[in-house]
């Protein structure tokens, strides 16, 4: 029997979602003295991402108050809810984290655009608008068109489900009278096929399909200054696809995300993976940490195994670990019938005292669900703490939605929370080296 291979690393990041990726960016690329880091994780939650990077949009959630300035919102939040993970960071740290991650995204050829001190309203596939902080370059013209109420045409396709240009236009007409809709056939397929965004995106990387698409839209363009399409404008070459369509039609072209799993999420994940691989980063993709042990010297021994069988394939010895595995979907936490647990280290999990308090009777209850306040409590250095408030291990950190005392879905702070706390955790570890 061959011995199980061993790897040594300074830092191991568990999780391949937004927090895991932001942690990798901060640890490996951001500073001159980068940390020797490995990453372990199964399916990335990023494929469910809309592509928007929320920072802070709604507070308090009970009143549904939407903030124009995310920094003011964070300040108010920290003063009202000093347990929120954002309260562990200075405003300049949060800003540096966002800037750093957006620079990383640009370097990975996925540029984002943000108004420095202002949230942006963006269009969702059900025709609602939501506040976010940064949007992919491919969606920026849509935010601008909405804000300036430009004459705009939204186009959808025969065969693409859950994306109705008429629905979006109908929903937005009261605030945006100059919005129209159009349905066309997707180039190179008849009206009979069931279309999937990823296939469509690949198809539009072929020049002739873009020309055919532009030809189909042109007669109905009218006085439109902006053209909105579902997010299918290429996977590997989104800029080229979009700019070519803009050139062909002479209007600004933008994407509206589709329902998950969507192309912007896949695009983001693939570009970041590529960037990490190009940087020589060791990744255990589609693997999970099966067991974790703490050595006498405080370092960790992690066994990494097959996602399904759990058969151990690799051992990692690591000085530090960042738990960035998300909540229930990401498997960072597990909810049983009696209690919520952190499965790897069995860390104390803050949670409502009773399952009856996990979920409200109204799914859309503005107060949010109690279960979303559950998670790991941390000290000022992002280390999970015990019931006495002391760090459980000196170099075990946590970042992202696994953290307690936040409701990223209602507060519209998911990406910012992931990016800023991952930055904070990496910085805290760096200080200890």
């Amino acid at each position, binding site marked *: 029997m061959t011995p199980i291979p061993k790897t040594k690393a300074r830092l191991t990041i568990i999780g391949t979602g937004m927090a895991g990726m932001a942690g990798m960016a901060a640890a490996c690329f951001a500073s001159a003295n980068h940390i020797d880091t490995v990453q372990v994780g199964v399916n990335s939650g990023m494929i*469910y991402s*809309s592509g928007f990077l929320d920072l802070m949009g*709604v507070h308090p959630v009970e009143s*549904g108050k*939407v903030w124009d300035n995310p920094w003011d919102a964070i300040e108010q939040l920290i003063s009202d809810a000093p347990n929120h993970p954002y309260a562990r960071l200075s405003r300049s740290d949060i800003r540096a984290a966002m800037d750093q991650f957006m620079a990383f995204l640009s370097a990975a050829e996925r540029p984002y655009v943000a108004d420095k001190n202002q949230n942006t309203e963006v269009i*969702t*596939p*059900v*025709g*609602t*608008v*939501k506040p976010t902080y940064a949007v992919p370059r491919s969606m920026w013209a849509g935010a601008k068109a909405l804000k300036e109420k430009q004459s705009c045409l939204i186009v959808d396709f*025969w*065969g693409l*489900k*859950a*994306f*109705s240009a*008429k*629905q979006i236009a*109908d*929903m937005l*007409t*009261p605030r945006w009278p100059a919005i129209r809709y159009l*349905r066309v056939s997707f180039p190179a397929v008849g*009206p*009979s096929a*069931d279309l999937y965004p990823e296939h469509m995106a690949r198809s539009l990387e072929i020049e002739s399909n873009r020309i055919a698409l532009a030809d189909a839209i042109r007669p109905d363009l009218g006085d439109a200054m902006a053209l909105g399409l579902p997010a299918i404008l290429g996977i590997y070459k989104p800029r080229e696809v979009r700019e070519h369509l803009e050139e062909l039609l002479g209007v600004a072209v933008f994407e509206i*995300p589709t*329902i*998950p799993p969507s192309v912007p999420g896949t695009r983001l994940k693939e570009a970041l993976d590529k960037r990490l691989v190009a940087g020589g980063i060791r990744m255990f993709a589609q693997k999970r940490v099966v067991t974790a042990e703490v050595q006498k010297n405080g370092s960790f021994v992690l066994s990494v195994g097959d996602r399904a069988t759990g058969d151990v394939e690799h051992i990692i010895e690591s000085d530090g670990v960042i738990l960035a595995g998300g*909540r*229930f*979907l990401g498997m960072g936490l*597990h*909810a*049983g*019938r009696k209690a919520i647990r952190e499965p790897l280290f069995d860390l104390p999990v803050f949670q409502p005292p*009773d*399952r*009856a*308090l*996990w*979920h*409200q*009777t*109204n*799914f*859309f*209850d*503005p*107060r949010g*669900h109690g*279960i*979303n306040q559950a998670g790991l409590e941390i000290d000022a250095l992002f280390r999970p703490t015990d019931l006495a408030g002391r760090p459980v291990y000196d170099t075990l950190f946590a970042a992202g939605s696994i953290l307690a005392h936040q409701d*990223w*879905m*209602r507060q*519209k702070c*998911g990406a910012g929370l992931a990016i800023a706390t991952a930055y904070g955790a990496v910085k805290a570890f760096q200080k200890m080296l």
Partner: protein
Amino acid sequence: MKKNLKTQALIIGGGATGTGVARDLSLRGVKCILVEKNDINAGASGANHGLLHSGARYVSNDPESAKECRDENRLLKHMAPDCIEETGGLFVAVEGDNEKFIADFQGFCDSSGLFCRPMDVAEARAAEPALSDKIIAAYAVEDASVDPFKLVLENITDAQKLGCKFLRHLKVIAFHQKGGRIESVDLIEKITRERVSIEADIIVNATGAWAGQVAALAGAAISLIYSKGTLLITHSRITQRVINRLRPPGDADILVPGGTVSIIGTTSLRMESLDEITPTIAEVDRIVAEGACMMPVLETARYIRAYSGVRPLLGGGGKGDDRSVTRGFDLVDHARDGIDNFITITGGKLTTFRLMAEKTSDMVCSRLGVSAPCLTRRIPLISSHETRWAVPGFSPKSWFSAHERDDLLLCECEMVPQSAIEEIVGYFDIFNKQADLKGIGKRSRIGKGSCQGNFCSLRIAAYLYDRDHLRSDQGASEIRSFINERWKGQRCLLWDTPVIQAELQEAMHCGFFSLELCPDASLHSQKETK
């Protein structure tokens, strides 16, 4: 502008009784309109076990009901065979159950004329391996399972074919009376707030637990006890037969199989109001614990839905277990309250719905001077084309056998195509230009698959916009109300995998679409019930 309609009989309430009356009267040639403030089976008719009682449940404390059940059970097996699965049933006792009750059971069944066969414990466990090894007695009875949605859909569809009008989303707001008669009834449309006035020769109040409230609008009194019962649906079928606990009626003592699932319940909780009838975590935990006494697998089974209904029980406010109150029905001629053309039918149970409809229709006909006899004992209820999308398993079979090239599956879990959605929307009544996802859900399998509406609600809403069945901002409240309806059944069962699905659903519908920020007057925040 107010719409005016005229009819011979106006039936209020779209549950088993109301739709049963609609079919019975229509078969006798009486013109009727059935109005319902929500949609079919919104009350107890849609929130029960789906048990066609043999009557054995009632032999010890309510022999009259037992005999009614016995007769209707045998009749309905012939009259509604497509809605019934002849599963047979067992009564089983476990260690510690009341020995005297066990000893008396056979005698009670005999004196009510019910079939009851003692079974060897080993034989019972061989037939139903999920039974606990702590079983100490077993009897075979003639229980069966009935699909209450199919039953009610078939009744109303048959009535409609015979000329009955069925108007959903219409709520009675006033009765106009003159000279001891109701001359007209005012109603309001739930979504459009449109007013409708209906003149009828006679009015039937078949609103189940709401019968007291509706009667009160006419100044008449109906005294009911509200008994809330909660039930759970398992992910897979646990037993072949109906399993009853052989003891005086108690919590979680009946397990009813139906198709690929089983239903375990109920609890019995006296309610003062009908405002918030949703399952609680405590009830769910109690049902799981009690059910596991008979079938230990229930302790670890995966549950897909919890729901609650209210039994409208007759009588004053007696103390003690509401299960001891008679399960008989009450047919009230409100001539006793000085209203000549107003009848209330309430109480009873799903098994006796046909009999209740027959007695009510007899009274209606005698008032109208119609001599045609009841035909629901003679003309079977045959599956109609219009109800086929609601049948589990029909959609995938139909899709795989043939479909148009440009048809698309909008519900991918249960394989419901857009052509089915279009057809179902076509059945909606004239007062309801807006198609509602919940209404489509009552008539198809959408939202009942593993995504629980998370994805199909979005695909169907988009399609309804494309077809002009939804307009302006209606989609946001449609998606919200559909998701929330599914949520009511999920929220008490969220652990392990379902909690993951709930998280994804919230990430999409709140995190991404921000639907929680959409103003919606119909969804006030509700207090957590513990």
